[in-house]
């Protein structure tokens, strides 16, 4: 069943490759769209069959592959990977949908997009360390080509940089995986949370450092992030959407799954450092974003800031903070995808992304009012305005981490405030004011009329916006999948959390005996009325 998620996009790619004659962009879109819609439907079906109460892998598939190496084709689905898989297919679908019909080398382009989808799905599903690594590397090459062939003017530089960085990340991860299995004397690379239990702390720590740097490059975290702004700026819009929405999540997924999940002793030892690292990343990314003048670069730097929250939450390793990592990954995936999408539409309509040049795009008749409204929604979601998924994610991150790392959490909240600063600058500069497209020194041409955005361009943005709001209003729809895996991941950290909990030990009940509450799927039902509740004692004289 799970293999289908990997195979369906590959089959679609095969169909495209074998398509007789010249492949029209429209046909390619339809074929790949059908493939991705199928896998999305399959994920939906799997979700209905998914047993919420089982913390481990479900729908497991196991085929021995290269047994002497310990490599087996083992797939599994759990609450950590299910939401990410859904986002992967959804955003791939969006990327296919918004791809320019006029691209050259149509066949290759769509095949590459489909291969990425398949590889990422494989990485999220892999329950074997080596298998994960293979998929992790597999996704690299198509992305390199997508940037290097269809990118902007400095695409060669950006693509090579991306390739070198990610290859380095792959080496470190492979090294860590090999070390982990060989040092612990295992013969199989199959994922098992007790894999490193017998290792001495020093070895665990060195393995974890390698893993963290490896995945830290992918996330990306300061100071390994400089490939990201370049890659985003040069990549075309659909690729940016995929890169920000899905591919970065491989890094955070890896951190949570393999760092937090496999190396608990080292994790506890390094947690304070990681939290501090997260703070540096958040503040650095946010501050650097303020100074950007390219819209896409600004959004890219904001990604660096927002992915830092995931590391903070993972470092705190309380149940709430672990589920917050899932929330933050999904919310960042949806929100940054929306933002990149909109920046792409602006770029397409105006030919520039320079914030010193664009003005007043919100103009109702001649500007881009729809894009502007959606952009305001997107940046507000990113800045953590309630009612949207960004808020509840950040709230969970902060709420989950505060008692463990109070100072770091407070500093991360400052980062959340800075998000408002740079995104507000973006909206104010680009969308408010009088419509003009000219550098500040040149007298603006006043009667420009931008091409109106068609419903075709609006639909994906609208869809993402609906999801952002829906999960913001009803976070149970997201939390229910991850509840048990979260508690399972938290299991080794109970002592750590209790020991590090600051201020008020009474506030955090022992989580070991937390009941598995089935989160209400339905809309909140009133529990009512509670009579004679002590009212606020404000008596007028």
């Amino acid at each position, binding site marked *: 069943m799970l293999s289908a998620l990997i195979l369906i996009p590959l089959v679609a790619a095969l169909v495209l490759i074998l398509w007789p004659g010249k492949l029209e962009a429209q046909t390619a879109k339809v074929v790949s769209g059908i493939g991705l819609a199928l896998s999305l439907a399959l994920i939906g079906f799997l979700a209905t069959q998914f047993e919420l109460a089982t913390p481990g892998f479900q729908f497991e598939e196991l085929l021995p592959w290269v047994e002497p190496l310990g490599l087996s084709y083992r797939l599994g689905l759990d609450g950590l990977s299910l939401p990410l898989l859904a986002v992967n297919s959804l955003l791939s679908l969006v990327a296919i949908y918004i791809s320019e019909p006029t691209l050259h080398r149509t066949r290759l382009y769509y095949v590459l997009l489909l291969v990425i989808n398949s590889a990422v799905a494989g990485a999220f599903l892999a329950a074997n360390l080596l298998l994960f690594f293979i998929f992790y590397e597999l996704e690299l090459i198509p992305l390199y080509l997508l940037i290097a062939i269809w990118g902007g003017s400095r695409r060669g530089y950006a693509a090579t940089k991306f390739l070198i960085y990610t290859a380095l990340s792959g080496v470190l991860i492979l090294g860590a995986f090999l070390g982990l299995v060989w040092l612990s004397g295992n013969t199989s690379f199959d994922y098992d949370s007790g894999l490193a239990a017998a290792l001495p702390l020093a070895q665990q720590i060195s393995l974890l450092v390698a893993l963290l740097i490896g995945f830290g490059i992918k996330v990306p975290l300061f100071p390994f992030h400089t490939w990201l702004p370049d890659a985003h700026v040069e990549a075309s819009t659909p690729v940016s959407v995929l890169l920000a929405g899905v591919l970065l999540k491989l890094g955070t997924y890896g951190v949570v799954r393999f760092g937090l999940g496999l190396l608990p002793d080292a994790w506890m030892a390094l947690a304070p450092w990681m939290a501090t690292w997260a703070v540096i990343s958040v503040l650095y990314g946010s501050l650097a974003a303020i100074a950007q003048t390219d819209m896409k670069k600004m959004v890219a730097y904001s990604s660096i800031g927002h992915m830092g929250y995931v590391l903070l939450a993972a470092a705190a390793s309380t149940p709430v903070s672990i*589920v917050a990592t899932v929330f933050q990954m999904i919310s960042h995936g949806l929100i940054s995808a929306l933002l990149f999408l909109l920046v792409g539409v602006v770029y397409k309509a105006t030919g520039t992304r320079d914030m010193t040049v664009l003005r007043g795009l919100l103009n109702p008749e001649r500007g881009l009012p729809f894009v502007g409204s959606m952009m305001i929604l997107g940046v507000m979601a990113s800045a953590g305005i309630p009612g949207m998924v960004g808020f509840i994610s950040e709230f969970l991150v902060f709420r989950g981490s505060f008692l463990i790392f109070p100072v770091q959490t407070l500093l991360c909240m400052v980062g959340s*405030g800075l998000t408002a600063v740079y995104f507000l600058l973006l909206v104010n500069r680009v969308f408010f004011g*009088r419509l003009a497209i000219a550098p500040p020194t040149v007298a603006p041409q006043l009667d420009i009329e931008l091409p109106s955005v068609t419903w075709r361009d609006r639909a994906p943005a609208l869809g993402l916006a609906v999801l952002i709001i829906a999960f913001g209003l009803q976070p149970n729809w997201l939390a229910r999948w991850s509840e048990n895996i979260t508690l399972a991941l938290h299991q080794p950290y109970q002592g750590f959390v209790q020991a590090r909990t600051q201020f008020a030990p009474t506030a955090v009940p022992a989580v070991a005996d937390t009941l598995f509450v089935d989160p209400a799927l339905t809309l909140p039902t009133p529990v009512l009325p509670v009579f004679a509740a002590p009212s606020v004692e404000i008596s007028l004289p």
Partner: protein
Amino acid sequence: MTQFFVETSWLLPMYGLIGALLSLPWSTGLIRRTGPRPSAYLNIVMTVVSFVHGLMAFRGIWNQGPQELLFSWFDFADLHLTLALDISVLNLGALELITGLSLLAQVFALGYLEKDWALARFYSLMGVFESAMSGLVLSGSLFVSYSLLEMLTLSTYLLVGFWYAQPLVVTAARDAFLTKRIGDVLLLMGVVSLACLAGSLDFNDLYEWVKVENLSPAMATLLGLALIAGPIGKCAQFPLHLWLDEAMEGPNPASILRNSVVVTCGAYILIRLQPIVVLSPVALGTLVVIGTVTALGGSLVALAQVDLKRTFSYSTSAYLGLVFIAVGTTWPGVALLLLLTHAVAKALLFMAVGSIIMTTNCQNMTELGGLGRKMPATSLAFVTGALGMVGVVPLGCFWGLRMGADFLSRDYPLLTLVFLLVNGLTALNLTRVFRLVFLGTPQPKTRRAPEVPWQMAVPMVTLSIITLLLPLILGKLLVLPPWQYINWPIAGLTLASGWIGVAVGATVPLSKSLARSLNRSLRIAQDLLAYDFYTERLYEKTVVAAVSTLARFSSWFDQYVVDGLVNGVGLASLFGGEGLKYSASGQSQLYLLTIFAGVGLLGIFMTWTLW
């Protein structure tokens, strides 16, 4: 039947939102054929429904105890977030005030924004605005309150930025969002720490927790300061007061609400939080200090403004400063009475201001004059509002100010003095404005000044009547003290301070042609006040400069150090390769030598231990 209205009172905050959603087709331009009017009517109808429903619930709850509506929203591990609504007489009263004023402001907007193309968008935003405020006063959980405060921040941003094509509006919207956001982020810190420490965010649970908590004093102080930061931003208190006067660039009907009920919502949260803030005497002291500074500073700054709207916005800050003092000295009753009376009077004043702006297209007082006879309804509304604002005759604010002055006179006589001073200065300012706008000879812009159309006149007159009747309503709600308990000396002082203010305002020389004084020292003082003690410039030089320097530094660091290092490594390896290629000379002897040297070294290395 009444119980039904109480039980469904969770709908009350929804009505505004429903109205906003219903008018989306018009605000997005999907429906153009009808013009934007239907969306306005829809929103007005929803507000009426909300008002009536609230009234029914109010009557239903009058003889019962307060009720709590609880909705479990999000449960995860040890985190339980509930959406709690406190249905009490007080909260419903505040809700009635909000929906009532919102209704009047929306009808007012029908006239004021008649020619605006984006009428539908305005009403959508007003719906969100009203909904957030209604939820805020009913909310029984800090989590809900915080969320709605943020919604309020967002909708303020959008409403201030309504005419987003104007440069001043752009900066005003930005400042409104950012200054409020500073307060909100600090408040979020408080909310998160409370959520962690107390385990629940329902106010009732928090009040229980306060009785048993064992926080260190430093922690309690930090918590208290974080909690009051949100209301400081929302109520435009020093040092986060900057946004309110800039926000006057927005459309006037929104200003009516902003100066009356929006700031009230901020203070309302403060009152709800007060039992927690009490943990920290430092935070309470800070409240009093901030309140005093804002009350006096705001009253003085208002005196030097020439903009009709801005001068009143500063006086809003000043009155909210008094509210802060009341909360800081733990007299929430004073705070609530002041909030109520101020909201009604200020809304009326802003309606009058709106009529003037609508008729003359001008809000610069040096260009106005002689409107008194031309616009009788507006003049009457202004006078009524002004009388309601200050303690000159026993209308609304007199009772609030008197009560504050009375209660504080026992423990803090100096703060009583603050109340009296604010009363006097506000009376002075109102008299000054009245003279400038309504008296004197007509100016070019006021020569043709017909009275406003009925859409604006009806709400204005209605609110005038309400303002006049407010003391009776207060008496009916048993809020006013019985005759024999009135502290006559204090009441007399309140009236005296007001009348002195009026007298000074009536006699002080005012010049239209010379807005700035010729006397140098007076001019410096005037400029200091006119530019709000140069707060904006101060911020530009400090906070803004610091953030932008840091931002530019990290961008530079990123480009040249982090990325430079990476590019340097790349370059070094390229050069290394280039350099090494010259070692390949093509002579086989050299290759052999290299191989032998390599193998030799390897041999030495491998047999190292044997030596």
